[in-house]
């Protein structure tokens, strides 16, 4: 894989050359691209090799040069659970979902139940807008093969890999559960909750968060058999409830995260490997709370998104997709 910031003209040249591309950029920049084998999603926040930056003019382009074939498909409504259909025998799927759309909510709540979801890597992100434009402009996804733009539905690029390549997804979450804190559970799944159980006692969650004086820049963290999965706070409104950027799941045990310290410093310590060879994205909340503008995440570059997808919707997490030699993967 190759990652780079490009002008729309440079990206258009790669499209015209037949490259298979995943592109992030402003709606304006994406709308100038020609038809071809690409999908795109709106974002103006990026982690680049020279540091985090906000850019409305240029595009972040990942070229999947190991792709033998690629098939962009837009899934919407009742077709969404079928998004694993139509993929190739040996391959992967990149998925882009517009933030705040019906598809975003549906995938977040029910994606883990979609048939065959875990049989091949499904990696991607939630598209966004400049924070100044929230409420005025909707996030979008682009079907480059048909020259169409959508504000709802999942834009999926099914990719066939060469026989000697396999894909693998992993995550880097710098947040850990604070085991000295209380256990938090919910009776219902959703992006917004009113009540919670804290160490078994039912509480009005907004009141409880407020009374505790919690730093809501720190997410709730659940332990998924060793994978730490965050639900990040969006808002806390006493009398109304608590909203999250990813749904909390009923019956799951959460704890408030322990502060990881300076994000850029800890990231540099824990991010292993060569990100230049990977498709990755990181969370806009890490970009904002970690004050990453002009700070570097090394070779791990990509859009800073409104949600990350590694099979399921994640928050405040870097998602990375790597390609390996098939033989090496078989004996790993």
């Amino acid at each position, binding site marked *: 894989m190759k990652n780079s910031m490009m002008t729309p003209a440079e990206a258009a040249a790669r499209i015209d050359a037949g490259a298979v591309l995943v592109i992030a950029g402003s709606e304006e920049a994406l709308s100038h691209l020609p038809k071809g084998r690409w999908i795109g999603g709106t974002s103006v926040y990026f982690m680049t090799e020279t540091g985090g930056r906000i850019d409305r003019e240029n595009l972040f382009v990942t070229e999947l040069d190991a792709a033998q074939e690629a098939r962009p498909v837009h899934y919407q409504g009742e077709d969404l659970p079928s998004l694993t259909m139509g993929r190739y025998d040996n391959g992967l799927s990149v998925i882009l979902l517009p933030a705040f759309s019906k598809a975003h909510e549906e995938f977040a709540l029910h994606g*883990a139940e979609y048939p065959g979801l875990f*049989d091949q890597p499904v990696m991607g992100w939630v598209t966004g807008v400049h924070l100044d434009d929230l409420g005025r402009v909707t996030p979008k996804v682009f079907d480059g093969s048909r020259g169409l733009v959508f504000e709802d539905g999942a834009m999926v690029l099914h990719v066939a890999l060469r026989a000697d390549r*396999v894909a*693998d997804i992993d995550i880097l979450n710098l947040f850990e559960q604070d085991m000295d804190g209380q256990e938090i559970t919910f009776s219902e799944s959703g992006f917004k909750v009113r009540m919670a159980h804290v160490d078994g006692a039912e509480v009005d969650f907004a009141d409880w968060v407020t009374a505790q004086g919690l730093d809501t820049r720190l997410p709730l963290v659940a332990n998924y*058999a060793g994978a730490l999965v965050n639900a990040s706070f969006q808002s806390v409104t006493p009398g109304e409830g608590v909203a999250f950027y990813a749904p909390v799941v009923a019956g799951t045990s959460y704890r408030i995260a322990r502060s990881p310290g300076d994000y850029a410093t800890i990231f540099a310590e824990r991010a292993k490997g060569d990100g230049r060879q990977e498709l990755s994205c990181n969370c806009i909340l890490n970009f904002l709370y970690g004050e990453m503008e002009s700070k570097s995440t090394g070779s791990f570059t990509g859009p800073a998104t409104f949600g990350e997808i590694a099979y399921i919707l994640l928050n405040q997490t870097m998602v990375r997709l790597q390609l390996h030699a098939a033989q090496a993967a078989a004996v*790993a």
Partner: protein
Amino acid sequence: MIPDVSNPCWKRVLMSETELAGGILATKILLTRLRREVKAKPQDLPGKIAELQAYFQKNSFAAKDIALF
């Protein structure tokens, strides 16, 4: 060789909360969902065992995770 659904390893892993250190992300997320479903409806355990076993039968890339059960 993937163990048959009658093998006790399936029930053991679905009824526990142990971490799958070294397991792949797909297995961890699927296992967590199935554990949650079994906890909510214990009578569904046979169906969840079948679903987990089918995942490993279908996906050879995940087979090494069974050794972690």
